[in-house]
C-alpha cells in the first residue's frame, strides 16, 4: 500500500515531465511532414488520446467484471472513473481527427471503418455515463453499469469485424499492412511514443483523481446518513 501511495504521488510529476518533453519534441524538434505540412503534428496528440481512450474502455470492462464477481466498491468507482476519462479522451480523438482530415481529405468526416468504430465506442460509453446518471438507485445502477461495461467490450471485436465491411481510407500509422504510408522517420516515431506515454500518464492520473473523488463522495454520503440517523434518534 505504501508503495502504491508513493507511485500515485509521483504520477502528477511524471506526467508533467513527460508532457513537457512531448511538447518540445512535437513543436520544436520533430521535422514537419513533407506532404501534409504543419497540420500533421496534431497526429501526435490524436494517436495517444485514442490509445488512452481504448485503454480506459478496457479498464471499465475489467473493473466491471471484478465488481460483479467480488462486489468490490473500489472496482465500481474505478469503472466509473475510467468511463468518464475514456469518454473525455474519445471526444478529443473525435475533435483532433476532423481538424486533420479537413485539409488532408477535404472533408471533416467520412464513414471509414476506424472513424465509425470510434464514434460508436464514444456513443456506447456516453450511454454508459447516462445510465450511471439516470438509471435508478445506487446499488442496482452499479450492477447495470457493470453489465454494460462488459457487454461494451465484448462488442468491440464484433464492431471491428462489421465496420471492415465499410470502405476505408484512414492511414495506418505504424504498420504498412493495411496499405497506409507508415511512419518511417525515427524522430517522428520517438515523438509519437513520448507523446503517447505522456497522454497515457495523464489519463492514468485523471482516472486516479476521479476514483478518489468518487470514494470521498460516497464517504460523505455515508457520514451524512449517519448524522441524519443520529439526529433522528435524538429527536
Amino acid at each position, binding site marked *: 500500500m505504501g508503495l502504491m501511495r508513493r507511485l500515485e504521488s509521483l504520477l502528477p510529476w511524471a506526467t508533467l515531465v513527460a508532457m513537457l518533453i512531448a511538447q518540445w519534441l512535437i513543436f520544436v524538434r520533430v521535422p514537419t511532414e513533407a506532404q501534409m505540412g504543419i497540420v500533421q503534428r496534431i497526429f501526435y496528440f490524436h494517436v495517444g488520446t485514442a490509445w488512452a481512450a481504448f485503454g480506459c474502455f478496457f479498464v471499465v470492462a475489467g473493473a466491471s467484471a471484478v465488481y*460483479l464477481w467480488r462486489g468490490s466498491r473500489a472496482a465500481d468507482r474505478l469503472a466509473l472513473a475510467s468511463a468518464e476519462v475514456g469518454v473525455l479522451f474519445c471526444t478529443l480523438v473525435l475533435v483532433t481527427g476532423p481538424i486533420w482530415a479537413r485539409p488532408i481529405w477535404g472533408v471533416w468526416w467520412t464513414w471509414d471503418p476506424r472513424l465509425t468504430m470510434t464514434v460508436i465506442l464514444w456513443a*456506447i460509453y456516453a450511454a454508459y455515463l447516462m445510465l450511471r446518471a439516470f*438509471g*435508478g438507485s445506487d446499488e442496482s445502477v452499479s450492477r447495470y453499469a457493470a*453489465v454494460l461495461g462488459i*457487454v*461494451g467490450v465484448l*462488442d468491440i471485436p464484433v464492431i471491428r*469485424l462489421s465496420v471492415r465491411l465499410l470502405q476505408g481510407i484512414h492511414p495506418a500509422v505504424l504498420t504498412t499492412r493495411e496499405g497506409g504510408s507508415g511512419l518511417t522517420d525515427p524522430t517522428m516515431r520517438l515523438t509519437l511514443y513520448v507523446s503517447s506515454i505522456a497522454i497515457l500518464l495523464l489519463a492514468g492520473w485523471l482516472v486516479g483523481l476521479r476514483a478518489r473523488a468518487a470514494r470521498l463522495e460516497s464517504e460523505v454520503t455515508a457520514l451524512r446518513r449517519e448524522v441524519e440517523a443520529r439526529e433522528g434518534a435524538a429527536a
Partner: protein
Amino acid sequence: MIRGVLAVLRKDLRIEWRTKESLAGFVVLGVLLVVVFSVALDPSPQDAPRFAPSVLWATFVFTGLLGIQRGFVLERENDCLGGLLSSPLDPAALYLGKLASNVVLLGIMQALVVPLVAMLLHVDVGRVLPVLMLTLALGNLGFAALATLFAAMTVRARSREVMLPVLLLPLLVPVLIGGVKATDAALGGATAAAPLGVLVAFDTIFVMAGVLLFEQVIRD
C-alpha cells in the same frame, strides 16, 4: 431448464395472444416506418431497389427498439417479476424464454415488413429467399439477445423510453451493418458470407453474455 424456457415462452405468447398489445405496436410501427423511410428517401423507381436493404434494417431496428420494452413493463405491473424470481426458475431459463418470445414477435414483424419493402421499393425477394431468411433470422436473434438483457435493465429507470434506445443503438451497429450488407449482397447476387459471419459472431457472443449476465440485471 428446457421446460422452464418453454414455460416462460408459453406464458408470454399466451399473454400476447390474449392482449395482442406488443404485436399491434410492432405491426403498426413497422408498416409506418417503412412508409416514412420510403417517403423521406423519395427514390425514383430505378433507384428504389438500392435503398431496400437500408430501409428494411432501419425499420427493423427502430420498430424493435420501440416495441421491445412492453414485455418487461408487463412483468413489472403487479410485481409479476417478483413472482417469477421467487419461483424455482433458473434466471438463465427466464432469459432464454423471454428471448424466445421476443424472437417470435420480431419474426412476425419481419414477415410483414419484408414483403412490404419488396413491394414498395420494387425488389424481387423471391429468388433470394433462403439467404434473406437466414439473414433476417440471425439479425433477429442478435437484436433480441441484447434487447432482452437491456429491456430488463431499463424497465425500472424513470426515463426508460429514452434510455433503452440510447443504450442499445450503438451496441447494435454490427447487426445493422451486417444485416444491410448481407441483404445487399444477396439481392445483388454476390456472396453474403462475410456479413453473415459478423451476425453469427454477434449472436453467439451476446446470447452467451445474456445467459451469464441476466441474473445481475433482474435480481434486486
